[in-house]
């Protein structure tokens, strides 16, 4: 798609934020907390991680000063959009029992305000499209996800600083955004290129002092894209979808399981993982009870439990379930791989299991 590119100077970013607030949005954006870049309510550009970059390796994440004045010169932290739409805990409904034993059910209504999410990366937009498919485009529609989804404005910022764990270029999901956002920004040395991709997005641009972009600025943007596309890690060049299932009895699963703690960190930070459990919480007054859904993980003991049997009692079986689902059976379910190359599962693995190494370990043909 071709969009009209404009430019605004970096010191106008606060005006941009103000435009969003005036339009009725609560802004959510990146900021530093507990040594990581997370997304939370953003009221001022002063909260943004300016002059900060990150260093990531499997099992390691740290922030550093980068001696620039850029706001978005970092790769994704542990979470972005997923927890805002598919929330870690969502009350689905409530039941009440009368003294005579009659039960009434009431749908729980999430209290929502329009959210503008600023700083979203291409990998997370790709993941969002997958979650949309899962929760909104299958046989059954999840009304809670749908309601939250309809309530957001996405302001993407093209990625200029992929981490060493990133491989979005090889999954075809980044580092620049094609579609799926309302507004797309590219951060240059002294300001931002801005494109509105939707009418909702275009409205926000009203009143901003926009200039037409110059050839030099376009060149700078192209060069950022080119640099950011050079990523350390790539998916191995093999038919991953069929190789993983061809190797379901490979010893390598056991070798990986010797390291894996089955902690579920990878599934918690994965922007496409959708597993959740249903939990019932009776209120202390004994007259009502609430039904929640909460994030679950295929690495938990209870995930595969059925009347006295745990189908996946061993860590090797759980790791295999996760990897074969994400990279193989996901294709049959959603028409693409479940991986968008964000690299979070590697970075946030406490023992530093690298997902690409795992695919190679299992899937590569050995020539003994």
């Amino acid at each position, binding site marked *: 798609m071709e969009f009209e590119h404009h430019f605004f100077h970096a010191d106008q970013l606060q005006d941009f934020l103000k435009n969003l607030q005036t339009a009725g949005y609560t802004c959510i954006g990146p900021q530093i907390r507990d040594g990581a870049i997370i997304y939370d309510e953003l009221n001022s550009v002063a909260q943004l991680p300016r002059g900060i970059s990150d260093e990531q390796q499997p099992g390691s994440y740290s922030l550093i000063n980068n001696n620039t004045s850029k706001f978005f010169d970092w790769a994704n932290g542990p979470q972005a959009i997923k927890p805002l739409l598919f929330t870690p805990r969502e009350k*689905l*409904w409530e*039941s009440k*029992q009368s003294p005579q*034993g*009659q*039960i*009434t*059910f009431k*749908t729980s*209504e999430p209290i929502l305000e329009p959210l503008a999410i600023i700083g979203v990366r291409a990998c997370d937009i790709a993941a969002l499209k997958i979650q949309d498919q*899962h*929760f909104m485009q*299958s*046989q*059954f*529609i*999840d*009304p*809670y996800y749908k*309601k939250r989804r309809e309530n957001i404005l996405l302001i993407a910022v093209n990625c200029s600083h992929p981490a060493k764990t990133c491989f979005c270029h090889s999954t075809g999901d980044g580092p620049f955004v094609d579609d799926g956002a309302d507004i797309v920004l590219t951060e240059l040395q002294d300001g931002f290129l801005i494109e509105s991709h939707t009418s909702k997005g275009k409205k926000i641009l009203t009143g901003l002092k926009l200039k037409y972009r110059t050839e030099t600025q376009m060149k700078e943007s192209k060069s950022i894209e080119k640099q950011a596309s050079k990523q350390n890690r790539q998916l191995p060049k093999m038919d991953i979808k069929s190789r993983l*299932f061809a190797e*379901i*009895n490979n010893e390598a699963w056991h070798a990986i399981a010797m390291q894996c703690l089955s902690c579920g960190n990878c599934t918690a930070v994965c922007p496409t993982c*959708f*597993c*959740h*459990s*249903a*939990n*019932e919480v*009776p209120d202390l007054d*004994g007259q009502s*009870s609430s*039904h929640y*859904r909460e994030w*679950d993980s*295929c690495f938990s003991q*209870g*995930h*595969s*439990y*059925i*009347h*006295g049997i745990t*189908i*996946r009692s*061993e860590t*090797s*079986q759980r790791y*295999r*379930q996760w990897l*074969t*689902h994400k990279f193989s*059976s*996901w*294709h*049959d*379910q959603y028409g693409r791989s479940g991986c968008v190359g964000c690299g979070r599962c590697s970075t946030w693995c406490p023992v530093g299991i690298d997902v690409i190494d795992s695919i190679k370990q299992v899937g590569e043909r050995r020539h003994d």
Partner: protein
Amino acid sequence: MINSNDNSYLPHEAIILERIQEAPGLFTLRLKFTDTKIQENYAFKPGQFNMLYLYGVGEIAISIVSDPEDSHIIDHTIRVVGRVTRGMTNLKKGDRIGIRGPYGRGWPLSESLNKDIVVVTGGLGCAPVVSVINYIEQRREQFGRLNILQGIKHSADFIWKDRYDKWRELPDTNVLLASDVGDAIWPWHVGPVTALFDQLEFDADNVSVMMCGPQGMMHVTCNHMLDSGVASSQLFLSMERNMQCAVGHCGHCQYGDKFICKDGPVFSYDKIHDLFETKGF
């Protein structure tokens, strides 16, 4: 506002019309939605299931055993195996629970018209196939020969003797029972159920085989049937996995690329045989 009609997660109140203790730890609840409109519009197929909700405890997936054309009542036979089912044992006539459903794809009954039928079950009182047998019993002339093969571990586990006796009286019906461990009054086969395969009466080119029970038993049955010349597309298995949402969202029941809750629970063997021999899926 979220419209309650658009909320697939929301149960509706149902009342227990009758509670039948089938055996120790096994009981049937006969139920009806309290909202007459919901009851009138409720329709299901044998092999489908409902999510039953026990107030303050939670939900559980249970298959429907009543006849799909009986619009007045919904029967669920429940085995006490976990927290929710244990809580449900205390329910009595007049008590209320929540129901949402029906979910899943059931047995291929219209596709099985005029075919011989082989029903193989293992373990105790296999509710999903009881609905099939009842269905065929009510429409006996529409199907070919009916074979019912039930294997259990110990003769003392045998339940529903009356039902098996009744089925034995049906025309063109072959009821075969086997127990791994017998006792003095067990009149049927002692040994593995597989020893009775030779006594089944069916035309391999015109048969539907319907199975429910432990995966190992279904596997042995599938292999035997394939050896006998039955196509894998005519072998049907009712699969069980952890189910918490019943609408393909929660992810617990995934089996390769399938969601057992909405793509199954009944599958033909050709659709699932890839992973069937591997533990952990």
